[in-house]
């Protein structure tokens, strides 16, 4: 198993993917966080605008990383699988380690630290522009408080778990393009749409149990679980809080990791053991 893990790390760092993805993640998150921080800064007018008096505004900016950046650790995890299918490198991989369960387990385990590293890049890309803009503008960044760092650690954890989910997703689909598209569709389209439907249904009429039912189901979706771990969602703060019910964050960790493992087990049973030709 140690050898298999070593192989995974060497595969990971021997292509350009890791630093290209890191640069993309850093640029993307830093840009949007900076835009948003500037918007807050200039809207923060004591007379008629936002009153940015506590660090919860900074927390919202930090949450840009898990809200928009989750796809990067997910890609780190998923591409450990999909790249092997795409470039037919499963042949050397399985020649070196013919026990496929060992290969898959190594991919899951190695995804955690690599996902964590990517998550740290994502968080730093949200924290640095916020600290710079709010620091110069005189708004509280909360970076001196343990509470803020607690929030940051939770966001880091939420992000890193997406790498595990990514491995599972990649195992199940193993088509790189399909995997990325489905991941985005599921988290960016299906989840929000379902949340809006829940809201509309609840406001339309009596059957409040409909809303409860939909919300109870949605709680267990990866996006909702991720939000539950990080605690502060960008959507929440923008007044788009359709989801009053959320899992406790410990349970949410189990749910998010559980999705990854479930996908991985299904992928192992149905595709990963197939013939490689």
């Amino acid at each position, binding site marked *: 198993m140690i050898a298999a893990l070593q192989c995974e790390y060497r595969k990971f760092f021997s292509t350009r*993917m890791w630093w290209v993805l890191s640069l993309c993640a850093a640029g993307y998150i830093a840009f949007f966080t900076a835009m948003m921080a500037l918007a807050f800064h200039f809207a923060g007018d004591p007379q008629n605008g936002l009153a940015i008096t506590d660090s919860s505004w900074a927390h919202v900016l930090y949450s840009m990383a898990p809200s928009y950046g989750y796809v990067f650790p997910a890609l780190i995890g998923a591409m450990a699988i999909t790249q092997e299918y795409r470039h037919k490198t499963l042949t050397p991989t399985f020649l*070196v380690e013919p026990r496929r369960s060992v290969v898959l387990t190594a991919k899951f385990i190695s995804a955690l630290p690599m996902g964590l590293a990517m998550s740290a890049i994502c968080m730093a890309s949200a924290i640095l522009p916020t600290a710079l803009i709010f620091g110069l503008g005189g708004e509280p960044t909360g970076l001196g408080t343990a509470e803020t760092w607690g929030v940051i650690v939770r966001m880091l954890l939420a992000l890193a778990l997406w790498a595990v989910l990514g491995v599972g997703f990649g195992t199940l689909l193993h088509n790189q393009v399909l995997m990325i598209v489905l991941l985005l569709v599921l988290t960016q389209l299906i989840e929000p749409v379902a949340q809006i439907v829940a809201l509309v249904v609840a406001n339309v009429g009596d059957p409040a149990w409909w809303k409860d039912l939909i919300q109870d189901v949605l709680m267990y979706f990866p996006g909702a679980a991720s939000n539950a771990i990080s605690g502060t969602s960008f959507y929440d703060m923008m007044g788009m809080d359709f989801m009053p019910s959320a899992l406790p964050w410990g349970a949410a960790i189990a749910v998010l990791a559980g999705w990854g493992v479930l996908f991985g087990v299904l992928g192992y049973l149905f595709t990963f053991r197939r013939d490689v030709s």
Partner: protein
Amino acid sequence: MIEVRALTKQFGSLVAVNNLSFVAQPGRVTGFLGPNGSGKTTTLRAALGLITATSGVVTFDGRRYQELSKPAAQVGAALEASSFHPGRTAIGHLRAMAPGLGVDTRRCHEVLDLVGLHDAAKKRVGKFSLGMRGRLGVAAALLGNPRTLLLDEPTNGLDPEGIAWIRQLLRAMAAEGRTIVISSHLLSEVEQTVDDVVIIAQGRLIHQSSLDELKAMDRPRTHVVAADPAALARLAQSRGWEVQPAPDGGLTVYGADANAIGQAAFAAGLELHQLASLHAGLEETFLRLTGQFGLGAPVFAAPAGVVPPGYAPPPGYAAPPPGYAAPPPGYAAPPAYVPPPTALPPQAGPEGGAQ
């Protein structure tokens, strides 16, 4: 030693490998031969646990690939040349395998030097030529200094220099007592390398012997048109030569060359109208065994015992086109026709050159 025992692999209704059994001995290079699509790659992949056999088993010194510890260090395999991440360097590819074989980075550089990729170690594989990929594949196979080597079409894409290099390398490794199997769809490509041959077609074993025994099966054949064919047939039989009627009304005599037949006919006072040697090289023996009849063999019945019962040539070859079965009236073979000394192209194209 590699033992393939009753290996069968079915893909849906297609039987790619059909009850195949053979043995590759240590200290010898075994050529695993057959036309494209005959099941060679499927057999090798099944041996390496990459595909699951429908039935049967392949063992390396008595154990299945999956049962070996650090299997890639005991059995080195080079399959098709496309199993590389194009963005990974040559050394990066080998280093990503090294921990599973228990070898260090120094050894990775060693094998790159060995296959002549020293200067390309830090080059990305995407920029490699087909021949360089082939060499990198061989380097990966050699990485763990394995006792057994399986190489699938190792000469593909190699220049003549590369083919000579791999010949020497494999001869040297066999001399050290290793078991080596190389597959090819062209016997001529590996003729100078192999000691033994295993020939398959349509997933079945057609022939297994040493190369020398295969060469011994190559008997001279001569096309003869005589004024009195019956008399010539009697003469040939009295000399112990086998005779078959040829489609143009002449005879094909096996086991005697034109000189011997001309002399015998002259001594017996028989009148000959045509006498021509039909060259049968090793490749032709190979094609005959795998059911691909060359132009030099209009009608040929394989000697008894060579073709296992139940074997049928592929559908396309079972029935020759009408032009072969019944030549147009007035047709006569060109009198002085002698096929070129070797029926083999000096250098075949990368793929399907012999098809």
